[in-house]
């Protein structure tokens, strides 16, 4: 039976957290199937990264080439396709991240192996994988089977698996750079840093966050006043930042800031996985939403299921009274 392969993601010389989650899942699958976990690292100046991988994988395949310093989906896909085709793994795993979104499906299509993406778990049952995915805005999960094949590929949602320490001592195997496509197709140029504004929401003790439920830009002052009354700063979820009702540096979630305030109040936020990633470690979480099935209530400590336009003025009054 083939190995379990974990594709290593890195940025600016650091291995990304999602890779350690993927390797944790990969070691379990390797144990279950009596095979090895092999990590595949494409990078440049890889020594430090190789060292940090050793405990986590039984074998580490390394291609050290300046072409792989930064992520380039054309180079990565071509090189990984070459390596995976030669390795004939039972299963290839990659994190479902900005990197994995481009790598997993492209590799699956190129190699014509059955694959699926953004899974919250994957297990082997009778030699075939069974994956669980979250669908319909997180309201439902689905269990999916794969068409029968010698090799499979799955991307795992970042943050869905808790990374565990490994006790392996991976054997390091250096590989030659496989043939790469025309570099004119796609060029990595540079990074643009995240925008910073006048308020740093990562430093606030109380964060009042507003989402799609606020409906219109003209309603934003209502939440702003509430935040002021409770001594908090104003933040938001994706739809509010997309509509430019609040600046991008106020965005909480995987594509914005990750925060851990003492108190997080989510107002009109349904709680996409991307949003929850950014705030679930807050000390106390309060959610106000009219949809009792909103996923935010599965992360919050306290919930109010009602119309936010009625709750906010009343809660502001109650807080003012309590403060006296």
């Amino acid at each position, binding site marked *: 039976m083939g190995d379990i392969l974990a594709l290593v993601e890195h940025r600016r010389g650091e291995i990304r957290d999602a890779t350690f989650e993927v390797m944790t899942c990969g070691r379990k699958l390797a144990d279950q199937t009596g095979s090895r976990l092999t990590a595949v690292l494409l990078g440049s100046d890889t020594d430090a990264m190789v060292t940090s991988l050793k405990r986590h994988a039984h074998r580490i395949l390394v291609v050290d080439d300046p072409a792989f310093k*930064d992520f*380039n*989906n*054309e180079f990565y896909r071509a090189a990984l396709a070459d390596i995976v085709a030669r390795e004939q793994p039972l299963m290839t795993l990659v994190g479902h*991240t*900005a*990197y994995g*979104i*481009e790598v997993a*499906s*492209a590799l699956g*299509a190129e190699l014509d192996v*059955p*694959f*699926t*993406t*953004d899974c919250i778990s994957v297990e082997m049952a009778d030699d075939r994988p069974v994956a669980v995915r*979250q*669908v*319909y*805005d997180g*309201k*439902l999960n*689905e*269990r*999916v*089977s*794969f068409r029968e094949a010698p090799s499979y590929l799955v991307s795992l949602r*970042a943050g869905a698996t808790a990374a565990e320490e490994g006790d392996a001592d991976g054997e390091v195997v250096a590989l030659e750079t496989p043939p790469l496509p025309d570099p*004119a*197709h*796609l060029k*990595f*140029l540079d*990074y*643009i840093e995240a*925008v910073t504004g006048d308020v740093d929401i990562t430093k606030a003790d109380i964060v009042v966050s507003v989402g799609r439920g606020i409906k219109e830009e003209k309603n934003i002052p209502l939440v702003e006043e509430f935040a002021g009354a*409770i001594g908090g700063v104003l933040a938001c979820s*994706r739809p509010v*930042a*997309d509509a430019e009702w609040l600046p991008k540096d106020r965005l909480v979630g995987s*594509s*914005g800031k*990750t925060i851990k305030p003492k*108190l997080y109040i989510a107002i009109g936020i*349904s709680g996409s996985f991307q949003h929850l990633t950014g705030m679930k470690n807050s000390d*106390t979480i309060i959610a106000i939403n*009219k949809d*009792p099935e909103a996923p935010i209530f*599965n992360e*919050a*400590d*306290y*919930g*109010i*299921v009602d119309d936010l336009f009625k709750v906010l003025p009343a809660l502001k*009054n*109650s807080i003012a009274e*309590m*403060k006296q």
Partner: protein
Amino acid sequence: MNIIVLMKRVPQTAEAEVRVDSSGKRIDREHLTFDTNEFDTYALEEAVLLKEKHGGTITAFSVGPPDSQDTLRVALAKGADEAVRIKAEDFGDLDGYKTAQLLHAAVKDIPYDIIFAGTMASDDSYYQVGVVLARLLGIPHATLVSRIEADGDKADLFKEVEGGLQEHIQITLPALIAVQTGINVPRYASLIAIRKAAKKEIRTLGREEISPEGLRANTQVEELFIPPVTKRAEILEGDVEEVSAKMAAILKEKGLL
């Protein structure tokens, strides 16, 4: 510039109760409203903005059941010149890969400079269709794109990666660009445009017109179920005044006021 836009009509589930039907594998569509996948409205707007700047034509494609034509009509009203529906009902259960195979069969012989797609769809959450289509066509791609500067046969793209960081890349056209939400502010269609669009023809492609070789899904949904709940908020009961008083008392007790 010839532009293709991929669009999908999806159930609006973010604020709705979503039930599984008697098959245990599909949702009960009865009580849900449907609209264009949010990411795709941004993809279409980006196409219209490019057309306004550089000229050219836009063709919108949707793989879906007959009511997908509602999404295509809105696309026509907002600036698409042609619309094509691939008849999902002709091809059995679809996953992201099979959907991309159908799109590949439909677009491979027509000229295009850019194919726009949304990075994902909110119903099946695959993030696959655009990337697979690009591979099947053998053209470069990028996802999570939040800014585009197209010039000649090159485009500078700004991709949103984790934590607000952006990757700035350059891609050679033709290419597939899958956009992130917020890349623009999608326009509304005017009433006149909607009326005009209602008269336009929407072409359909079914089993008679396209028959991709090796058409097959990678995966099959075996079961749809409500996610197990590991934690649940204490929901405060009472009218608005009562819950507000209770909440304020909790905050005070925790020393948060």
